[in-house]
Structure formats: structure tokens, C-alpha cells
């Protein structure tokens, strides 16, 4: 055996340097591949062990949580339950990880329950120390998003001021999560961060914030004007979304100005908002914008708005559009608006007249109620 090794050694020593390099690489790669297989298998074992621990903790903790949540236990029983849970999760090695499992379990129940059970879970979350862990994580800075998410999911209103500091944070993901949590915990009063927000908000974030805002009761949002006047277009668009979804009529003057906004997205949203709020007074402005703009999308929006806001004057305009416009989309939109204005008769008369093949098919399409 030793002879074999000696011979191999001398063989390797005698090799040219380029052979040595390639051989070294081959052996390294083989070792690397083997190591990776071992790592993959170990990773599986680790996952299995975590899953087992999760199952064990869930099995033991769930009955206690259910008891707390669904029975009318008094303060003493509540403390006993917390002691029991603490005993279950207590471990010299896995305390942190066990607390994380417990955290997820409580969050899960919280998402799926309401009423008194909801309040009891919040109390449990505080008493057991999970709220403090989340706050510590928030302050340490390593787990910002997770901490903010947990605190807002558990509706820890008292942590609102801690969270508000992050609504203008440099990291976009943290900032978005903090903005969302602020609206969730503080309602419309916590939306002040939008007043001077200079970073853009993505459409995704706007949808998230709107989703939370839709839970507000219909009441006046007096900050709306500031948002609509903002230099930040994303804040303006969000303001318009809030305006139309929460029926905020009081800033109609600002809305009228936004119809002329230089940003196409803002302009489009403004027209749409005017339509949804049935703001018929702005029709004159819409005519003006129609003449000024060259963008088909904006023209389409205006024709669509006329279908909801218009009267006899608009019928004439729409008829004229059908007759003179060459752009398919505009003719289509005008015909659709005429139908919405209840003027099928106009469309039928077109059908009887000699229209271009395209015009005729559009009118037929619009008159077909099955589409």
C-alpha cells in the first residue's frame, strides 16, 4: 500500500506544471461535487429536524392557545398558560428558533380569527414576549421587514411611532413595509408621511395602501389636497385612487387642474377619477384636453368619460367622432359611450346608413349585448 502511495507521489511530482494544474482542478471539482451532495443531504436532515420540532411545538402549544382563545379564562389561567408555553419552547439550544415557530403559529391564528379571540391572541403575543422580540429586531436593524410585518399583523398599535420612522427609509422594501404598517395601525392619521414623500411609490405599493385605506370609514381626508398638489407623481396618482375609491369630492378644483397634468399616467387617472365621481362640471375641460392632446389613450379615456358624464351635447360630439375619426379605438370608444348614454337609436341609424365596413362592424359589435 505504502509503495502505491510512494509511486503515486513520485508520479505526481514528476508531472509537468500544466498537468499538475489540470489534475488539481479535476480532483478539486470531484471533491466539491461530493461535498455538495453531502451538504444537500445534510440540509435535508436539518430541514426535517426543524419540521419535526415545528410539529412537536405546534402539537403541544395549539391546545393551550385554543384554550386561551376560545374559553373565558381569567387572568390567573392566562398566566398559567403562558408559563406552560414558555416551558414548551424553552431550550438551551433552540430557544430563538422555537420562539420563531411560536411566532408563526400565533400569526397564523391571528390571520384566521376575529372578535374576542383576536384580542386574546394580541394579549398573548405581548405577554409572551414576542412583541418585545419584534421591537428588538426592528431596532437592531437586521430584520426590519419581518419585525414591521409581525407588529402590523398583530396590530400592535403602540409600536406605530417606532414604525413611522421607517416610512422614508433608504431601503425601498423596508420603507414600503413601514408605510403599509403605518396605514394599517394608524389609519388615515398615519398617512401624513405622504405629504412630503419624495421617493416614488410603485403601483404595487399604491395598491397595497389602497387596500388598507378601503377599510377606513367614509370620512373626509383633509390631506388630499396636499397629495394632489405633490411634486411626486406617484403620490398624486395614489391621491386620485383614494379620491375615487373613498368618494372624496372636496378637492374637485385640484382634480380639474390635474386633467391638464403633463404626466400621462396622472392625466389618465384624473380623467378616470372625474368619470367615477360623476364630475360633469369638468366636461368643458375634457373637450379642451381632447383638442390639446395627441395621445390616443387620453382621447379614449375622455370619450369613455363622456359616456358616463355627458348629455345631449356629448351625443353630438360622439356622433361626429364616429363619422370623422379614422382611429379604430376612438370610433369604438365613441360608439360604446353612445350606447352607455342610452342612444342605441343613433347607433341603429348608423347601421342603416352606409358606413365603412369597419364602422359597420364596430356598430354591430357595440349593439350586440352578448359581448
Amino acid at each position: 500500500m505504502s509503495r502505491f502511495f510512494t509511486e503515486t507521489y513520485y508520479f505526481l511530482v514528476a508531472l509537468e506544471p500544466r498537468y499538475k494544474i489540470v489534475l488539481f482542478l479535476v480532483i478539486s471539482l470531484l471533491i466539491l461535487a461530493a461535498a455538495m451532495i453531502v451538504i444537500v443531504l445534510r440540509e435535508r436532515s436539518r430541514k426535517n429536524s426543524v419540521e419535526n420540532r415545528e410539529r412537536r411545538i405546534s402539537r403541544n402549544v395549539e391546545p393551550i392557545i385554543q384554550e386561551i382563545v376560545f374559553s373565558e379564562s381569567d387572568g390567573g389561567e392566562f398566566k398559567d398558560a403562558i408559563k406552560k408555553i414558555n416551558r414548551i419552547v424553552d431550550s438551551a439550544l433552540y430557544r430563538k428558533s422555537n420562539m420563531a415557530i411560536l411566532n408563526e403559529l400565533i400569526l397564523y391564528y391571528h390571520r384566521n380569527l376575529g372578535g374576542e379571540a383576536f384580542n386574546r391572541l394580541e394579549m398573548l403575543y405581548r405577554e409572551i414576549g414576542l412583541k418585545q422580540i419584534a421591537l428588538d429586531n426592528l431596532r437592531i436593524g437586521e430584520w426590519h421587514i419581518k419585525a414591521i410585518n409581525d407588529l402590523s399583523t398583530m396590530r400592535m398599535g403602540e409600536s406605530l411611532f417606532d414604525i413611522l420612522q421607517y416610512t422614508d427609509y433608504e431601503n425601498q422594501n423596508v420603507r414600503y413595509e413601514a408605510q403599509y404598517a403605518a396605514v394599517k395601525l394608524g389609519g388615515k392619521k398615519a398617512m401624513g408621511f405622504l405629504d412630503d414623500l419624495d421617493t416614488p411609490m410603485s403601483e404595487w405599493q399604491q395598491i397595497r395602501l389602497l387596500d388598507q385605506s378601503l377599510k377606513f370609514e367614509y370620512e373626509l381626508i383633509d390631506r388630499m389636497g396636499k397629495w394632489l398638489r405633490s411634486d411626486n407623481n406617484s403620490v398624486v396618482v395614489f391621491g386620485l385612487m383614494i379620491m375615487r375609491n373613498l368618494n372624496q369630492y372636496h378637492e374637485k378644483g385640484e382634480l380639474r387642474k390635474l386633467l391638464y397634468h403633463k404626466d400621462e399616467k396622472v392625466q389618465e387617472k384624473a380623467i378616470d377619477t372625474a368619470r367615477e365621481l360623476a364630475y360633469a362640471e369638468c366636461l368643458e375641460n375634457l373637450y379642451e384636453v381632447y383638442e390639446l392632446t395627441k395621445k390616443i389613450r387620453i382621447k379614449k379615456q375622455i370619450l369613455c368619460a363622456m359616456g358616463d358624464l355627458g348629455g345631449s351635447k356629448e351625443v353630438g360630439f360622439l356622433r361626429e367622432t364616429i363619422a370623422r375619426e379614422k382611429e379604430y379605438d376612438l370610433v369604438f370608444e365613441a360608439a360604446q359611450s353612445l350606447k352607455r348614454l342610452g342612444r342605441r337609436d343613433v347607433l341603429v341609424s348608423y347601421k342603416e346608413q352606409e358606413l365603412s365596413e369597419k364602422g359597420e362592424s364596430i356598430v354591430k359589435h357595440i349593439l350586440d349585448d352578448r359581448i
Partner: protein
Amino acid sequence: MIEFDNQNSFIDVLIYVFFFVTYGYTVFVMVSYLVLGILSVVQARKYLRRNSYTDYLNILQSPEAPTVSILAPAYNEEASIIENVRSLLSIRYPNFEVIVVNDGSRDRSLIKLIEEYHLERVDFAVNYTLATKNVKAVYKSKNPAYNNLVVVDKENGGKSDALNAAINVSTGEYTLNIDVDCILEEDCLLKLMKPFLEETEKNMIATGGVVRIANNCKIDKGRITEINVPNKLLSQFQTLEYLRSFLLGRVAWGSLDGLLLISGALGVFQKELVIACGGYDDDTIGEDMELTVRMRRYAREKDIDYVVGFVPDPLCWTEVPESWAVLRRQRNRWTRGALETLLAHKRLFLNPYYGKIGMISYPYWLLFEWLAPLIEAFGILLLVLFSLLGVINISFLYLFIALIYGYTVSFTIATLYIEEITFFHYKKRRQLLRLVLAGLLEPLIFHPFLVYCSVTGNWDYFFEGKKAWGSMKRVGFKKPSNGSKGRKITISKPSPSSKNQVRSSPAGA
């Protein structure tokens, strides 16, 4: 490596250059794969971390969600079309329509759709913004439950033509273009739309997602209910290939904004831009890659500050060929498709005006996707020749081949490791070991086969002028009981009368 004579003859220099180029090229390919691999891991982890708290319910309930049209071209799909359409209709998204285009099928696809979904012909005004073959009729359902289903019956014109017809009748701001035989994850549209809604600085023009292999997976009511590694070795090879290609390759290119291909099986596009740049090209068989490249080119030429996204989540499942003959035809076609696109857009090559795609992506595709198999085949031929002539050092060559083999295997295992720490789909230990075993055999069996397909693809393109698709006959879903293997796909020879047709798997995986 080369044993020179005392005097360096011309032949010696030539051989020396050959080896220098071959070894240099190989090392360069290996290093580039490594870099892409590292980038992918970073990107996939970042994606998972960022999305671990994403609540898609926000958008699912939102009245402000943008409208999306799902475009599904179908040709002779009677066996599976009902299930597939049902699966599309059950996608989770608040504001979408499904447009199925019956591209002149010669089977009962349309009749089955009419019967199942209570369709009736409507007076739909088709705007031929994109030129297509004649649309014979448009159908809508009498049942309000299928209100968002539109079926277009048109003359046969091929997949690109069918997609263009679907775009013409669509009303959404975005289009999700799919292969009708693919199985989509329920939340695929939510995940694919997220990058569009998240982008604040640039104009997101398209996003793609990861396509995985459905062979041997359990499928019930158009949904994957159990993920398994395929039984057949050939499909296992393709599983590894798809993993490497999507998990490592495209995720990395996505992070670099250098993607030249959004798979035809799954991609969301900004409709306005698709129309502006002329829609799908009827004259190419690699229509998905061609459109992606053309859109990027158009955006750059119109000074649109754009970006193309990629979602690392597996969102679409497709069945891959289980026979060597079918696979050969498929790969041959993919080679010709990529080649067509590369030649059609040769202006991009090392053109700094086009930024990353001109300076990095296009040259990479050219050198490592198209040329690599050709260089490999040429190299092997020369090596055989040189060894017969006795002018090369065989032992060094063996060692170098061992290095390439070791690298390929390590790379495959690294891919499995990344899959393990990210999406973790193959949960059974036995399945993992089967893939490792396939990874050991793949460089010896599957890779040479792919080289062969690529060489014949090039030959067919340049010397035979072949451009037609192979048509497919589907058998349809099997019942999921008894460990069902889902559907089976057989691809028959292209019919002379048909320009079709629909591919079963994404191009250029």
C-alpha cells in the same frame, strides 16, 4: 500538449492555435457559467427574501389591478383543450380574460369548446391592427360564469398568426402568452404582474417565468398536485437541463437585464409595445425569441428606458418529449429558431448603441448558445484526426476532458443544491439521488446528442432551408389515480397542408 518538430512548421503553428483557441474557449465558457451561476443564486435568494412577506391578496382584491388578456393559441388540441381552458379560467387574478384561438384545427377542438362552455357566435368587430389570416368567427359564452372567455375561430396560419389574432381581439393592457398545453400555477399571473407593478424607474416591457417539467407529476383538474422526478432517463436529463437553464441561466440574465428570450410557454408583455413593434413575426419558427429581441430593439431605438423582468418562481409546467426522435426534432427546430433570430438582428452584434444586449447578451448567444455546439463538434472531429496523425498529447487531452466532465457534474450538483435551498420541489431523497445519477450520465449521453441536434439544425437551416414546425397530436390528460403520469404528447411529422404549429415546450431552454 503538442510535440513540435525542431522547426515550427505552418501546420504546427496551426495546431498550436487550434489548441489554444479550444482550451481558451472551454475555460471561458466554464467561467461564464460560474459567474452566471453565482449571480443566479444571489438573485434567487434576494427574490425569495423580498417576497416572503408578500400578500397577494392585496392585488387580488384590488379594483386598480391592470387588465390582462391570456392568449392561448390552439391547434388540434381536442384531447386536452377543455381541461386546459378550465385551468386557465381558474387562475387567481382580479381582472383577466382568456382568449383561445382555434387556429384552423382539423379535429373537434372548436366543437368541444362550444359544447362545454355554451358558446355562441357574436358580432365581434375584429380590429386587424396586426395583419393575420381571416378570423371566421368570435364566440362568447351564454353562461355568465364564463364571461371572461373569448374563443376566436380563424383560418390556419401558425402560432405567430394565432397570437397576433388574439392580440387583435384582446382588451387587456398586458398579454400573458402561453402554450395551451402548459399547466400554469394558480398564482402565476399575480407573480408575473408584480414586476410590472413594482418598477418605478423604468418601463417594464415584458416578464418571463420559470418553466418546469411535468412528466410523471400528478395532475388533477389542470393543476399539479404532486411533483415528481420523471421516470425516464431522457426526461431526467431534460429536468436537469431546464433546472440549469432557468434557475441559473435566465435568472442571472434577468438580473443583468440581458434576457433575449421570454419563453413562448410563459411570458407577459406590454400589449401597446407588442403592437407598436409589429406583433409576432409569421416568418420565423422562433417567434418568442424574435419578439423579445425586436421589442428590446424597438424600445432602445425609440429611446424608451425599458427593462425586461424575470420571476425565478416556477410558474409553468410542461411535458417534455420522452423519445429521442421527438426530442431531436424539437431541438433541431429550436436551433433553427434561434439562428433565424440571431441573423435577423445581426445589427445588434457588438453595437454599443444597444447597450447590454448589443455588447453582452447577443455576443453571448452567438458565441455560447449558437456556436458552442458547432465548435464542440468541429473540435471533436479535429481531435480524432489529430490523434490519428499522432500530433497531440493524448494524456493531456484525457485530463482536459476529465476536467470538463468534472466541471459539468459539479455544476449540475450545484444546481440541485440551489434548487434545494430555494424552491425545494423534489422532496424525496430518492428523487434527488436519481437526479444526481442522471447528472453523472448526462455529459456522456445527453450532451453529445444535443450537439448532434444542433449541428443538424444548422445544416437544415443553411443547406436544406427547413422552416416548418412539427405538428403535434395530443392524447389528453390521464386520470390522476394510480400515480398517473399526466398527459402524453406525441409529435407526428409535419403535415404538408398545415403551416402549424404549437410547440410543447419553451424554446431555447
